[in-house]
């Protein structure tokens, strides 16, 4: 009988789910602002704009609070893990998954880096849109293109993420790590052989 090993701390899980919740609220309200068919169906644009703006502020505020109040040392270790690529990681990318991986595989590392970058860019372009409505100095013709483009790029990442976390038989066990915090030891040894769980 294989035993569960801890993959994600409570702080990490809180960060993940706060990010997910914020993303979906922002996606929903943003699509109402963006897609003509939804804009017509829902109406009440000023209200939806306020919801979208304040959800965005709430989103980054909660993320910052989780980092400040949570296990920062653990987060720093995880960030270090995600940052560093060794030769096996590069091989894993070149050979489409055929190289031993640590706690995170190279795809997860890239996903994490892109997600963090998109968060910064969503926030920057969103603030520019909000400020630009109030002051010409913050108005750029391409802000809306960046904000929309980020939405498309995030949806592509999210689709892959959800497929691997919920559907793909070999990987969906990982969802347990993000809900209960633990994964099966044998599964970990198979998918992340270089990871030494504490």
């Amino acid at each position, binding site marked *: 009988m294989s035993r569960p090993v801890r993959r994600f701390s409570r702080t990490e899980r809180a960060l993940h789910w706060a990010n997910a919740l914020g993303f979906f609220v922002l996606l929903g309200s943003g699509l109402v602002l963006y897609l003509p068919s939804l804009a017509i169906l829902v109406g009440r644009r000023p209200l939806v704009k306020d919801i979208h703006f304040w959800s965005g502020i709430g989103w980054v505020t909660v993320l910052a609070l989780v980092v400040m109040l949570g296990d920062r040392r653990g987060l720093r270790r995880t960030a270090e893990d995600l940052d560093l690529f060794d*030769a096996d990681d590069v091989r894993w990318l070149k050979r489409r998954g055929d190289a031993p991986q640590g706690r995170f595989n190279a795809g997860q*590392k890239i996903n994490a880096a892109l997600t963090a970058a998109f968060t910064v860019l969503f926030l920057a372009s969103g603030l520019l849109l909000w400020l630009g409505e109030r002051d010409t100095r913050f108005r750029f013709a*391409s802000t809306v293109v960046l904000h929309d483009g980020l939405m498309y790029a995030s949806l592509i990442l999210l689709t892959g993420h959800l497929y691997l976390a919920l559907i793909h038989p070999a990987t969906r066990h990982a969802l347990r790590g993000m809900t209960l915090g633990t994964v099966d030891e044998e599964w970990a040894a198979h998918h992340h052989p270089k990871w030494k769980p504490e």
Partner: protein
Amino acid sequence: MDEPARETHRYGRGVFLATVAGGLTSLVWGKSVWGRVSSAIGPAEALVPLVPTEGWRIYTVSGSMPRFDPQAWRLTVGGLVASPANLTYDELRSLPRTDQISTFHCVTGWTVKNVHWGGVRVADVLASAGPAPNAGAIQFVSMEQPYVDYLTLDQARLTDVMLAYEMDGKPLPREHGAPLRLVIPEMYGYKNVKWLQQVNLVETPEDGYWEQLGYDVDAWVGRSNGYGS
């Protein structure tokens, strides 16, 4: 022979920083690149009508979108004119018709090319109303309260300024201002008042809805609102 896996590189932060840098610089190159991508995939756009690549965004300022009632709706032409008018929708449609294809620019950066408008010239409406000598501007009042905007008479007499009741061969859809909207392609969309119900001649232009919130009164495309300066 594989090299040993001990050496590590900080590619994670590399990907992060490159993406942030690329995204921020796109504030300079984003729109032109998107324009080219969008015209390249133009045919595919029709297959996914949900996705407005080079398409419209629907902007409103109030809680609900005005609804056009053909029986009740009137266009009133009043203020400083010799002969005020109160036109039904059918009377409006029986005025001399004009068609044009022009590009629509929103101040927030999106553009819709080659929109086919059908309607009446503002210059024709003015000529039949007969502006008083002291009239210098037109107030356009929307059914969407409190949306209002103004053009000077000179601006309103530009040859492609019109009141449009058709768009791309169909009656103007509700979200585009049914039954009637102002079209002035030289200026950003916020001057192109939707859901028109009143055209009033006044002495001087005042600040319209967005101008009261800091946008330029003369909204020339490419040379107002912080662009092109």
